[in-house]
């Protein structure tokens, strides 16, 4: 099962290596890992998507908490969360195909961020499943490049989507 683990870490050199190294040394599999600053300049947030059974993920959580510069660890499994990926995707878009590609982008609430003679670059964000669905939908036109952030997440206050 996929678990989204959120770790608040000290914002200092070497922390990413310590966390990534722990994962490698203990043979835990990382699906994605995102690091970014927070509102506190001393802290960064790592959002790590891990695949494993409950016992493995429990170990991941504990071993992560043991890494000295890791301040707080949360496993969002079983909690209502907002989880989002961001993707930039470059799609082959010859002029005759553009209307249908644009309506596809519209359906996915994507945004065209660059247009060239042969390709258009689109920005899409959302839950991972939506990103995957958009990639699949674009495949028939030809995909040149994909760049994805990996998942970031935050627990919801409200228990249902607004």
């Amino acid at each position, binding site marked *: 099962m996929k678990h989204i683990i959120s770790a608040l870490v000290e914002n200092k050199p070497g922390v990413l290596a310590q966390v990534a190294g722990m994962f490698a040394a203990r043979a835990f599999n990382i699906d994605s890992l995102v690091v970014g600053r927070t509102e506190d300049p001393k802290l960064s947030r790592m959002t790590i998507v891990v695949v494993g059974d409950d016992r493995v993920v429990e*170990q991941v959580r*504990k071993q992560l*908490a*043991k890494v*000295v510069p890791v*301040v707080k660890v949360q496993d969002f499994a079983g909690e209502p969360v907002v989880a989002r990926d961001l993707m930039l995707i470059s799609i082959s878009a010859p002029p005759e195909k553009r209307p249908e590609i644009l309506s596809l982008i519209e359906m996915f609430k994507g945004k065209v961020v660059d247009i060239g003679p042969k390709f258009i670059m689109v920005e899409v964000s959302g839950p991972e499943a939506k990103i995957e669905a958009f990639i699949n939908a674009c495949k028939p036109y030809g995909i040149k490049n994909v760049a994805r952030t990996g998942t970031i997440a935050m627990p919801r206050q409200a228990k249902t989507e607004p």
Partner: protein
Amino acid sequence: MMSKPHSSADSAASTDQSSIKTGAQIIVDTLIEQGVDTIFGYPGGVVLPLFDRLYDAPINFIIPRHEQGACHMADAYARASGKVGVVVATSGPGACNLVTGLATANMDSVPVVALTGQVRTELIGNDAFQEADTTGVTRPVTKYNCIVKDVKELARLIKEAFYIASTGRPGPVLIDLPVDIQVNKTSTDVSAKLELPGYRVRTKGHAKQISIAAEAINKSKQPVLYVGGGVISANASEELRALAQKANLPVTTTLLGLGSYDQSRPESLDMLGMHGTAYANYAVQECDLLIAVGARFDDRVTGKLETFAPNAKIIHIDIDPASISKNVHVDIPVVGDAKLILAELVKEVKPHPRKRWFSKIAEWKEKFPLRYDKDSSTVKPQYVIEELCRQTKGRAIITTGVGQNQMWAAQFYRFSIPRQLISSGGLGTMGYGLPAAVGAQVARPDATVIDIDGDHSFNMTMTELRTAVEHKLPIKVCILNNGYMGMVRQWQELFYNKRYSKSYLSNPDYATVARALGAVGETCERPADVPKVIKAMLAEKRPCVVDFRIEREENVWPMVAAGKSLNEMDGLDILERLI
């Protein structure tokens, strides 16, 4: 014209000049403030500023022949004294040579602080002379490490290193010190506060969990206490004794737990695991409650996990939350300091005779004691150790190599005092015994320190004998010399059809080597000579090496082969035939 803003640099400059120190001075002052009076280390280019400050510092400095030796010495110093061991090395090769020692300390949870030199800050990443990515290399084998980038942070980082190394589940911490940091000056005072928002240690056990554990103990008909090195590092032996004796609990220990409980007590089951006693292994397999304290369910202890203690509810008392349910599912976890938790537990447990359980254990003890052939015409390693134990009244500090020598030492020396056995358990580092004896003797100058070693273990670090000679450390080295890597050979005999592939080397004459290095060297080839050779060795005031030419193909029994259950021991029939 704008007025110059009042900067913090100005206020720093205005402070008393006498409080301005170089990084090297800050390091030495902080070490002394942390109570350090002994350092093991080896100089080199980029630690010269630090070594210059150490030239007239009030610190006992032990120089090994190899940085690996220094690291093992610092580790054994820590194990023998309960203090933090300190090791210093230069950059590149010096730091890389610490790796085995750090990994050894890390696996066995030993508090060590390593200080390594590093090339000048602006050269880092340029493949400079003697540059290695030390924090990168040592990260997986330390509890924590960091590189100092600003001399103002130096005092704080060193204090944090000592705090992290010695609290919680102890372990090695490395601080990498670029040479310019050692030279730069700052007025930052040494009283800097720790900044460790991510480091918390839970010491007090959860009261409710302790009550649940006590209730389980009170209800249990067939309990076993399974004790690891954590009880020794928590200085909790007295609390352990009180618990075992009040509640009437049989006690088995891991290799690193030896010394935490007096083995002469009737409730002692001695060591469990791969080469543990049959009575300990049977008791664990048949117990209805296993109370693990400061132990981590290592594969050498549990054997096949699926069939380990199959009928037991498991209580696990440990300071490291990540140890709980890592290998074996735990029913009643209690996270915290073993000393505090055991003291609470003692109050809540009730006396319980458990007559049937103890009579069953007595039967196993009667039927399957550890044995060896006492009528042999060759020197039996077990005999050497029994004789050592007898003549030292079981009170010597024992260090070991790794392999058969280590297992025989664990089986045949009778331990009763915490910090008495100093052995590389988790990592199994051959070559540990001799430098460990040096470190232990430095920590305990008045103790009898004996390295029970194997010939091939001794080969790996024997150069450190000269360190003992130079520092007048009267360590005793007993080489159980069978001319083989004995445990490798034993496995090849049992599992590889006696194909002794590369498991022997030609050895030097150790007595001659010892004498060349300035120590006393003896050889013992006949069983009849063992007592007097040991007597002479123990009377010797100089470092002393005795080369015991032992039975070449002696095996360690019993043995739980890798992947077998604890009750599936090989060699019990061989032991029974020895009656």
